[in-house]
């Protein structure tokens, strides 16, 4: 399987097969990340779409100073936060609960985890998803979010305490 960096350099050269592989690798992850942030499937789909288009157009500008995943989630984050800024101005679409697609499949604990995640402030929820679901290090998250590493650790500490309270 091709490494992310190889795929990005092929995408920069206009290789559609590499682009499709990158899409298969990241589109769901970007969608779920955006969905946990925005809690709106329509907006999450827009974020995924804009992110993939930006990858196609900007692959040539990827300098390799970070992981490809950090670069991609940085693009997705910018898109998602543009929607969050609209929320501040009262222009945003309504939030949906974080629920599983098929209630019959909804394992009780997973439903409770999603419900607890949804109750976290967005900045803490984002750190939890990036760290636990995406497996990003605290340094990568700090770089992605543009905040000090101590802030990332502090958000995680607060989030973990709330999740634990909600899940016990």
């Amino acid at each position, binding site marked *: 399987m091709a490494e992310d960096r190889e795929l990005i350099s092929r995408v920069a050269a206009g290789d559609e097969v590499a682009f499709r592989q990158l899409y298969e690798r990241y*589109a*769901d992850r970007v969608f*779920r990340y955006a969905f946990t942030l925005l809690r709106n499937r329509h907006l999450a789909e827009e974020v995924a779409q804009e992110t993939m288009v930006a990858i196609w157009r900007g692959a040539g500008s990827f300098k390799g100073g970070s992981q490809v995943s950090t670069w991609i989630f940085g693009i997705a984050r910018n898109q998602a936060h543009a929607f969050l800024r609209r929320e501040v101005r009262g222009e945003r679409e309504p939030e949906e609960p*974080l629920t599983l697609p098929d209630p019959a499949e909804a394992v009780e604990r997973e*439903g409770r985890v*999603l419900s607890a995640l949804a109750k976290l402030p967005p900045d803490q929820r984002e750190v939890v998803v990036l760290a636990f679901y995406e497996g990003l*290090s*605290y340094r990568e998250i700090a770089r992605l979010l543009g905040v000090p590493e101590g802030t990332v650790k502090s958000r995680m*500490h607060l989030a973990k305490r709330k999740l634990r309270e909600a899940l016990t």
Partner: protein
Amino acid sequence: MNCQEVRELIPWYAAGSLPPEEAGALAGHVAECTACRMELAQTVRLVWGVREAVQRLPGVPAETWGKVLARTRGIPVGRLDLGSFLLGISVGLSVREGRVPLTGELRVLGRRVPLFEIEGGAR
């Protein structure tokens, strides 16, 4: 590394993203500290709980790829392939965001190498 420093790093250790030097120091502490060992066990359960729950959320809709393709490669309206699977050249016309670029590709062993794009070619 003291207990407070370890507690700060446990989430990343549990998620497998702590750099090796910090992971080694943390593991050494946890081996000797019962309280931190319990904290680690609880956090590992939390990491897996979040991972499995988020993984079960719906993925990107199936039609999104088509939308992305229409905005990047464009919707093909005509294509001329010359040569064989081993070596050939393709010239295609597509519609992309209101423009109709003409593109040329070299085909080598099934792999496509872009050669040119005329009109609206700036990516």
